[in-house]
């Protein structure tokens, strides 16, 4: 795993943990922002979802 991939994996881990903590009620602004960040990281990693994930 190269340095960039390590950074991306770590960033993704941080976001997913934060989403898990939020994901209990309706979609709030904070959680939507976390999803934006997650998708940005996935795009950097060229592993973006081909279709938007449902919840």
């Amino acid at each position, binding site marked *: 795993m190269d340095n960039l991939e390590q950074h991306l994996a770590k960033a993704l881990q941080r976001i997913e943990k934060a989403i898990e903590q939020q994901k209990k009620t309706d*979609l709030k602004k904070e959680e939507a922002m976390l999803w934006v960040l997650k998708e940005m990281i996935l795009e950097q990693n060229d592993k973006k979802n081909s*279709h938007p994930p449902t*919840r």
Partner: protein
Amino acid sequence: MTKKILILQLARLGDIYQTWPILNALQRGGAEVHMLVRERYAEACLGLDPSIKVHKLFSKNILEPLFLEPNEAVEKSQARLAENLQPLIDESYDEIINLSFSPLSSYLSYLLDPEGNSTKGYGRFLDGSFAIKDWPSAYFFSQVGIGSYNRLHLVDLLAMISDVTLSDEDFSSRPSAEKEIDILLHIGASQPNKRLEPHFWSQVIQLLEAGRPSFKIGLIGSLGEKGIAEEVQVPLSFRVDNYVGQTSLPELMDLIGKSKLVVGADSAPMHMATLTGTPCLNLSMSSVNFWETGPRSQGSRVLWRSQATDYSPREVSEEALRMIDHLASEEAVVECVSAAAGYKILQWQQNEIEWDLIKIFYFDKKADPYSGYEKVFSSLREINQLALEQLHILSESPQQATAIKIYGQVEELLDSLGRLVPPMQVIVRWISVQKIAIGPAPVDVLVQSHKMIHEDLERYISDLCPSQPLQGVMHD
């Protein structure tokens, strides 16, 4: 009062250029138009009408804390994102049109308009589930992309979502320039599977030199394609200017505007040529869908081969010369009538049934009986009958576990049918997107909505295969 509209276009260069006509059309309709693009691709907005306000999404800056900060990284990135979006929220847009078709854009759309009352395109419901609020976006979700059978051009779909009717004038970004270059060859492509090899281009150049020794040829491409250009061998006696990696995007557009013809695979220069009115010879293949992203300048032609290695340099050079000489095509599958009108078919007979089904299910084409598919439609009807029976049970007892389980298996059966008989994928995707579009609702509403979808399906099947009447399915 002037309507203020924000377009979300977070895809790459080619998609931004394909959005230009939409922006022009919205502006022509009297709207104040803004667009959000990624900072990385914002150069593709240079040359737009100066009154169109371009905003940038600074992804790198937003993600920086997540990559570099040891503490509170998530919070810092969130704060940067909020800071980036606040000016857009402050604009209080009358309408937000998301033309990006990505998960990211669906959440951004939600952040800019959580209620979703003034948004089009992909979004999110308040509970966070995926929202498709207009049928062109539902069509895109279900029927557009590689491996699908769509024949609607992306520009036309963007126009449908934005509720504008395009005119040729909307595609015209600048006055026509004097033609100083005969042919520009775009030697690269955004993805390797769309690309033709350097030796292919060497042979095309040799053949063009043999046919027209006085021609002025240019090579175009991005900085990353410089290596390919260096491998292209050019006869010493022939004038070929290598512009690869040496032009900004506006300079490249100027070059394209000064050319009589652009030849290349499916990529951004084709979309730039659409905006300068320069005809293109598009070398398309199965890794792309020319119907969706081919050139739209008048007179453009599309050649199609299964893969890049199936192309013959002679066929390409001969077709290019026919275009320069305004002679009828011998090889092209479609030709562009005009930017607004799109393609006329010259020789294309693939996937006729699939496209026909798309027209029936999405565009109100009258469904006539199909011969040769009776057994398939009979199977589809049986699956649909099973679905309707379970929905009838669930409408009376919504928690009936067996009915829920069987109804869940209907989806698997439909998927299997689509895999076994590819044209049925059109119908399977139609069913699926209809269900996604319902969104969150109480169970009784969901059951009723699903029932309506399967009843609609039954009516379509009856038209397509009227010989086997359904028995005992329709419960009111």
